[in-house]
């Protein structure tokens, strides 16, 4: 009985095939031709090259120029906040103006200047690995490096020569786009301040930090971002005066076609990694959190084609 069933099924299959004649084989050809290429790179893990604090795995593409303006206002609450400073809006903890230019699709150069410690920095970011749609590469990896100079003596009088004013940071950024709405990154960072910063007895010149950040999009152009960093520094963990806190930020990311706008709240006052990882002394618990924003504007400086292609038709 079983055998008969199989035979019948086969005959049936045979007849269906016959009934469909050419169509089924046309479909077969079609599907063999247009099999999805799942090996392609996952794009747009993040919308911008930076979240609140940390860099993302996105680099500025070839011949594009990204112009960044980042701002951190004063404390919303606590002793410096409140109505008399319009909840911190009267003060600016840090202002960062930066440029990022894409040399290739995977390598960009960065330049920026912070109000905080008057830090001038130059660096690069290189996208080494790209996450693949078929998970043959499950994550993206980018490497970033920066050198910073504090040209003016700010809090200390010990900037006796320029080598003391130099700071460095090296970072590996590992990110995965879990779905079209959710992306996560972690980045181990090495920071070196040639003169310990802040300049306090016992502070370390070198330390390692770990950042974690995530983006959740609830519409195509609007998302929540969370950004957190922890420096593994025994001095910072044990110091009581001043006391150090881990930078933590939450924000809203809006993309408006060409612009990416981030509105955020964070305890960290500084914008550059070398500053906020080294010296975040403000605490969410004490009302020392602030409004901040980042405006990122992408310009395409590549060669223009004057729509000549259209004349083909």
């Amino acid at each position, binding site marked *: 009985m079983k055998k008969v069933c199989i*035979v019948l099924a086969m*005959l049936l299959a045979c007849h269906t*095939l016959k009934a469909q004649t050419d169509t089924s084989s046309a479909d077969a*050809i079609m599907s063999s*031709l*247009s099999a999805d290429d799942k090996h392609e790179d996952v794009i747009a893990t993040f919308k911008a090259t930076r979240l609140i604090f940390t860099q993302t795995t996105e680099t500025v593409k070839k011949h594009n120029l990204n112009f960044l303006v980042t701002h951190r206002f004063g404390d919303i609450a606590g002793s410096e906040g409140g109505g008399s400073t319009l909840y911190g809006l009267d003060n600016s903890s840090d202002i960062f103006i930066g440029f990022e230019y894409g040399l290739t699709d995977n390598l960009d150069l960065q330049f920026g200047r912070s109000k905080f410690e008057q830090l001038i920095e130059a660096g690069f970011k290189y996208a080494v690995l790209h996450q693949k749609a078929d998970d043959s590469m499950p994550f993206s990896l980018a490497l970033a490096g920066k050198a910073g100079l504090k040209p003016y003596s700010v809090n200390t009088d010990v900037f006796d020569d320029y080598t003391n004013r130099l700071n460095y940071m090296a970072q590996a950024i590992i990110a995965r786009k879990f779905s079209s709405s959710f992306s996560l990154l972690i980045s181990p960072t090495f920071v070196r301040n040639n003169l310990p910063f802040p300049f306090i007895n016992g502070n370390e010149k070198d330390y390692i930090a770990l950042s974690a950040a995530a983006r959740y999009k609830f519409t195509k152009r609007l998302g929540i971002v969370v950004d957190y960093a922890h420096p593994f520094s025994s001095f910072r963990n044990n110091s009581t005066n001043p006391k150090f806190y881990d930078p933590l930020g939450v924000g809203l990311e809006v993309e408006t076609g060409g612009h990416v706008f981030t509105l955020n709240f964070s305890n960290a006052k500084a914008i550059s990694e070398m500053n906020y990882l080294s010296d975040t002394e403000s605490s969410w618990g004490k009302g020392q959190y602030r409004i901040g924003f980042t405006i990122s504007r*992408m310009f395409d400086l590549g060669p223009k084609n004057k729509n000549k292609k259209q004349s083909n038709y």
Partner: protein
Amino acid sequence: MKHLLILFALTSGLLAQQAPSALYVSKNASVTLYSEAPMENIEGSSTDGKSVYNAATGELAFNVAIRSFKFQKSLMQEHFNENYMESDKYPQASFKGTINEKPDVKVNGSYPVTATGVLDVHGVKQQRTIKGKLNVNNGKITITSEFMVKCADHKIEIPKLVFQKIAETLKITVTANYTAYNKNPTN
């Protein structure tokens, strides 16, 4: 078991017999999209369209991978995939239908044709009749067509909060060169 084997043989024989004779295949059809917008024109193109045409029945199938569209501006390309076409969810755009006129592909010439069928863009299927031209030149077929796609028809959202305004209708131009399908491909 014997019977089964015989049937197997018969079945495969049948399948081999109905290998199509009137099938034409295009492996790198060009598809361009164009729209004029106040700030900058949107222009993208793909040369990765796949199509099968059955000259006997007039059946036409066409597929193009959304990711294969290239744009002058990399950011435009990203937005096209990420914000408008959602290519991770809807990786392909396709047309499946019939060419109504079924011109004789043994006679050289240029035939105006219309294709009726389903246009699937952004996962939304629309019944369409699309005008085009079918050229026959010594057994080689070229189909060209130019038609409009309304973003709203395919639920492609154009947000209000976009500084660069985007046109609501895109002009699609298709050029596909077909060759007779080889019944015994080497694989």
